[in-house]
Each structure stands twice: as C-alpha cells, then as structure tokens.
C-alpha cells in the first residue's frame, strides 16, 4: 500500500515587494512523518511554512494538504478560487504554533483551547471543555486552565498554544520556531511535548534552530537557504556528513565549537 501523503507542495513562489522569498519550493510529507526545516534567517523557512496553510498566499505553485488543494475548489472541469469561508474550512485541518505563542490574551488557557472547537467546529460546550481539559493535561497544564496568558510563563503559553492547535484535531501540525522566543530553561518542556506528539504519530513540519532536537525527532531534515531547499535527508546523514558546503557551514555555526 502506498504511503498516505499529507503535504504536497509544488513549485511554491512568493515575493514580498521586490524580494523573491520563495523560489520554487517542493515538499512531500507522508502521514506520521516529522520534517524539520533548518537554515539561516531570511532563507524563507517561516514564509514557506506559512504558505502551507495559506497565511501567506503563494503567487504560483500548488499546495495540497490531505488531498485538498489549498485556496481552490474543484468546479466542473476546472478550479475556482475559494472564498474566505472555504479557505477557513481547509485551515481547520492544519494546526499552527507560532514563535510568539499568540494566545488570545482576553481568554483563559481553557477558553483558548476551547475557542476553536466551540466557534469554528460548533462542538457542544461540555464536550469541547472535556476535550480541552484532556489536552491541557496532556501538555502538563491541568492546573493552569483558569490562568490568563499574561499569568503564564513563555513555556507554559507555548504548551497552551500547542493544546489549542490540537483541539481542532488537525491532520497536520506546523511549528514556526516554537522555542525561539523562550528562555533556555523553558525550551525543553516545549520540545518534550513535541516529541510526545511525534511518538503519537502526528504529522509535523517544524521550523527550528534546535538541531539536537531535530536529530532526535525528525524523520527528515531540510536545509533551506535563499528561498530554496538546498539539501535534504535523514538527520544522521545531514548532520554528520552534509554534502552541501553551505549546509556544512551552517551546522558548524549553530552547533558551536565544531
């Protein structure tokens, strides 16, 4: 049986003004696979991740997530551009975790996690609350359900944000530098939650600078620079014997003393 494909991106291009940020990026991710994207800042990693759920709409190329062509719907023999409501429906299947957490600051942790199911999926309150409590327990924050984001540490906020994304029961999870704005002592608690998720078989695409985490959690590592994927392979191959000179330089830099 052929593996089930969750992400299929073909020839994704994106400009911001005059800057050509993505220069034809392709990616295929199988169900249950964990793909980590590394590379220097400004290389287009985050932008590429954001084109996967169309927070940034690519100018050309195609993104298919779990069989849906993002931003488009079949109409007769051709395709039409999806409405805002249609695109929002597609996004329900894609969880996203941001560098700055972006928890809804006027809601408690529990309300943050319940928000999507209640307002988007129209799940009954009681059911959504039970599921939200289960997810908060899963990320180790059962005792913080009534706290507002401003009362939580960065690591706690990020774990609530992961629970909020999981509450939609997504097919795919996107992580945009989830530990980059955390104090060092809080990085581990977030990475642990992500490791647990990967062990549960969640399909994930992760942009991160945590190369040690990548080695442990990733099935595949992509090195991205200047809007292109320059090298990809299994963690051990990429990290121990990178073929590309730029990959080598970058890894030396982020791993320090090498």
């Amino acid at each position, binding site marked *: 049986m052929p593996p089930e494909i969750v992400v299929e991106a073909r020839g994704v291009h994106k400009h911001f003004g005059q800057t050509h940020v993505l220069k034809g990026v392709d990616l295929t991710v199988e169900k249950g696979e964990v793909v980590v994207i590394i590379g220097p800042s400004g290389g287009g990693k985050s932008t590429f991740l954001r084109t996967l759920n169309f927070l940034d709409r690519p100018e050309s190329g195609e993104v298919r997530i779990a069989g849906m062509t993002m931003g488009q719907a079949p109409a007769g023999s051709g395709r039409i551009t999806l409405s805002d409501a249609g695109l929002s429906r597609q996004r329900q299947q894609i969880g996203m975790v941001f560098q700055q957490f972006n928890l809804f600051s006027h809601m408690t942790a529990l309300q943050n996690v319940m928000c999507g199911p209640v307002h988007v999926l129209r799940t009954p309150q009681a059911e959504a609350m039970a599921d939200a409590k289960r997810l908060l327990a899963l990320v180790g924050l059962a005792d913080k359900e*009534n706290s507002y984001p401003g009362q939580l540490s960065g690591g706690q906020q990020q774990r609530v944000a992961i629970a909020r994304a999981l509450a939609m029961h997504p097919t795919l999870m996107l992580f945009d530098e989830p530990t980059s704005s955390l104090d060092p002592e809080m990085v581990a608690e977030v990475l642990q939650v992500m490791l647990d998720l990967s062990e549960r078989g969640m399909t994930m695409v992760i942009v991160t600078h945590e190369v040690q985490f990548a080695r442990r959690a990733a099935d595949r590592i992509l090195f991205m620079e200047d809007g292109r994927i320059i090298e990809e392979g299994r963690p051990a191959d990429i990290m121990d014997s990178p073929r590309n000179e730029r990959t080598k330089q970058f890894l030396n830099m982020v791993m320090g003393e090498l």
Partner: protein
Amino acid sequence: MCGAGLPKGFGLVIWDWSAFFHYIHSPYLLTGAAVSLGLSIGAMAIGLVLGCGAAMMRMSERPWVRGPASVYVWLWRGTPVLVQLIIIYTGLPQLGIKLGVLASALIGLGVNEGAYLAEIIRSGILAVPKGQFEAARAIGMTWGKTMRIIVMPQAFRIIIPPMGNAFNGLMKTSSLASVISMEELLRRTELLVQVQFKVLEIFMVAAIYYLVLTTIWGFIQARLEAYASRSVAQDRTTRAAVPVAAIAVPTDAT
C-alpha cells in the same frame, strides 16, 4: 438670605434661590434633559454602527473600499457639526429632502459622531497585535469571526476611554440641536427663560443637569473599563500570589 451686607432686596435681584429650587425639579426641564440623553444615546448608536463600518473600510487593502470611508471621515471631521445640522434641517428641503426635527438631529449628530468614532475604533483595532489575528485565522476562523470573537473584544478594552470621552462630549454637543428647534434641554431652558426672565437661575439648572448626566456617565465608564480590563488586571494580582482558583472565570468569552 444670601444678600447679607447688600441693600435690602438686592439679593433677590442678584440670585433668586426660590426660583432656582423651583426649576431644579421642573418636569419641563427634566423632560428636556431626558430628551438630551435619549438624543445622545441614539446618535451614539448611529455613530457606532457608522464608525465600525468606516473603521473596517479604512483598513481594507482595496482603494475603492478605503476611499469612500476616508472621504466621509475627512468631510465630517472637517466641518462644524452646527453647520451640518443646519444644512440637514434647513438646507436639504431645498433639494426636496424634508426631515423632521428629531430625524435631522439624530442623523446630524450620529453621522458626525461616526466620523470621530471611526478613527477611535480603527486605532483600537490596529493596537491589537497581528499575531492574534493570525492565530485566529490559523484555527480556521473566518474574517468575520476573527473580528467578532478575537479582535473586537481586545480592541474594545483599548477604546473605552476615548469612546467614553466621545460620549461625554456628545451629551454636551447635543445642545446644538436646539438651533434646529429640537426641544432638548437647552432649547427648553431658553424657552423657559423667555417667559420667566430668571436667566441665571434657569441656565444654572440646565448646567447642573448636564453635569449630572456626564458625572453619571463617568461612573459607568469606570465600571466598563474595569470589566474590560479583567484579564489584564489579573496579571498584576498573580504577581501578588493570588491563588488561581480564586480568580473568577468569565463565562462569556467562549
């Protein structure tokens, strides 16, 4: 009684307490104050609807959506509301548009207020971090739901103080409707003065009525601010080690 040291009877000429106390509970003036309040609330409601619409339109990427809203704000903020009221009530009939006194006053004050509120609301929305919007979109909220459930409640907290000031101003500005013969507080005061001649006493009563209205509104505004800031205020309480369980959970946010 207050004229000690002055020639006999002169005190009554200066200030007539009995007239003052008579008019301060005059049903005629009280009704006028109620009309002023009603007119202000009505105009504020119109202003909020127009202001929200114009604020959203001004943030659109499309020039043909943004343009009309900008012209509206520019025209109405750039001309005196008194002139606007007179044009609506006295000028428009020339074009065959005849509006009653109440309709003219409500439209004139409401549309003018909308132009100011548009700017207040827009600044409130812009003050909500972009990440809030993106996180809402990422969990599959439509643009409308994102605004209603995530952005507006947070913008609301930011705009209560300037919006409260706007309403305070509006309650006083509503007195301008007297020039188009709207029988609100000021107009009734003037009418009363024309027959009773107790100019100072009656106008003081009117001033006190306005003061009472704006003072009560001040209290209401303070309560609104406290309510809207509850998630922020609690930040400070945790630092003071208040147990999480002791914090009331608002039930309306989900």
